[in-house]
């Protein structure tokens, strides 16, 4: 982290970049938030640790409209989103100075809480310099510890690899965290009966409070005007337009990002209700891989996206029924 701050200071001082897009310490030890830093003094608040799960590539849409270059810190998985946004001409490559930062897996505070660790005051072992094996959590009930891997976000267990897809320079080391199959959960649901499937999804989606956090954080959801913005009021806001939208929100959203979703997992990370939203997106990715050949959005900037492409001998929609 010190190396990162030092480099950011250098670049700010010599005028290569006008601002730094990174994470700053939040109110609590485990909630760093995305922030701009436009002076070397402000970099005192800069943090980069195991809790910096936020994908900063979407912020580059706004940063691309600002004067001067923006230094943006991207983790390996964030670079896929960055590439996808570049492909869609939503961000300006010339306005970005990408520093690829290392990643040893990001932590999920909810998982730590689920282990029964409550009243958290301080967490050590989450720094990038630490040997990422155990976390020591000091709580109001005394000191507790847990394994780093057990506290990781779901998406880190199915990591796409620690290779940056786009960068100007790399700082920091990464550590492989993949220990599960990405499509295992989707495949498990596919084998359920229709009744079980429906019961599962109705239970999960009933938790939704339509806060729109998943939409707002999603790098693929970057339309200037969103279908979910209400046109009945002067300001574009999240009040629902009609009941249809309320009922089908998650399917509509998943379909809108189908073929463009890089599976960055931000939707599930930010959901205050803990709905596993990535299951929708991953289902589309799995189907696309199965029917139209493997495709990873954001990997190759020149690749044709599967939904804007076709072949003469694509499978017929009837395959869904035949597959059983």
């Amino acid at each position, binding site marked *: 982290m010190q190396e990162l701050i030092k480099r950011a200071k250098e670049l700010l001082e010599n005028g290569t970049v006008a601002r730094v897009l990174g994470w700053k310490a939040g109110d609590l030890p485990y909630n760093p938030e995305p922030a701009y830093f436009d002076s070397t003094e402000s970099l005192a608040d800069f943090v980069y640790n195991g809790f910096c799960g936020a994908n900063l590539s979407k912020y580059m849409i706004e940063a691309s409209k600002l004067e001067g270059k923006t230094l943006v810190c991207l983790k390996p998985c964030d670079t896929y989103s960055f590439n996808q946004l570049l492909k869609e001409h939503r961000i300006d490559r010339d306005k970005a100075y990408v520093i690829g930062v290392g990643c040893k897996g990001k932590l999920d505070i909810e998982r730590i809480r689920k282990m029964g660790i409550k009243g958290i005051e301080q967490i050590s072992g989450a720094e990038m310099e630490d040997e990422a094996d155990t976390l020591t959590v000091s709580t109001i009930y005394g000191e507790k510890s847990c394994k780093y891997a057990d506290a990781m976000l779901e998406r880190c267990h199915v990591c796409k690899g620690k290779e940056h897809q786009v960068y100007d320079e790399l700082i920091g080391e990464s550590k492989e965290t993949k220990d599960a199959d990405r499509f295992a959960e989707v495949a498990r649901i596919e084998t359920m009966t*229709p009744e079980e499937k*429906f019961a599962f999804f109705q239970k999960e989606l009933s938790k939704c409070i339509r806060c729109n956090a998943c939409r707002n954080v999603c790098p693929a959801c970057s339309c200037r005007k969103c279908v979910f913005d209400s046109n009945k009021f002067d300001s574009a806001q999240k009040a629902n337009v009609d009941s249809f939208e309320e*009922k089908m929100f*998650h399917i509509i959203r*998943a379909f809108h990002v189908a073929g463009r979703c890089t599976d960055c997992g931000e939707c599930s990370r930010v959901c205050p209700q803990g709905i596993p939203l990535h299951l929708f997106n991953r*289902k589309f990715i799995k*189907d696309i891989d199965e029917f139209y050949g493997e495709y990873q959005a954001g990997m190759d900037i020149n690749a044709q996206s599967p*939904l804007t492409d076709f072949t003469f001998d694509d499978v017929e929609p009837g395959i869904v029924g035949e597959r059983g």
Partner: protein
Amino acid sequence: MSIEAKEEFRPKIVAFCCNWCSYAGADLAGSSRLGYPADVKIIRVPCSCRVNPMFILRAFEKGADGVIMCGCHPGDCHYSTGNYYARRRMTLLFSMLDYIGVENGRTRVEWVSAAEGVKFSTTMNEFVEKIHSLGKNVRLGDLRCRN
């Protein structure tokens, strides 16, 4: 006579038909005096590619029990390639509906050309029968909380 005597279930079926092939096919079925159930409501679209996957969800939400999309045979699209895109979209949408537990017999895609009045009529008869056997669509009415 009991007041609660059950009314016979009449499914509501929406058929999206492309202007150039399937709508003309439906016309031909009519002029050849081939019957198809009146439960099928046809919506004419310029091309099968015009059918936004949301149209299908919307139809279900508004109370349809089955939705069928008809277009030109692949390769015969009036706009050359429209139905190829539609085919990919519908495959993914149907797969997703299957994934969330909606019976996959409720959705169907059939390619019907302007000369296939017979096919149109048999397809619709078959589909209505299928929906009859599946019964009323309750699942897609509300994916979130009901009950």
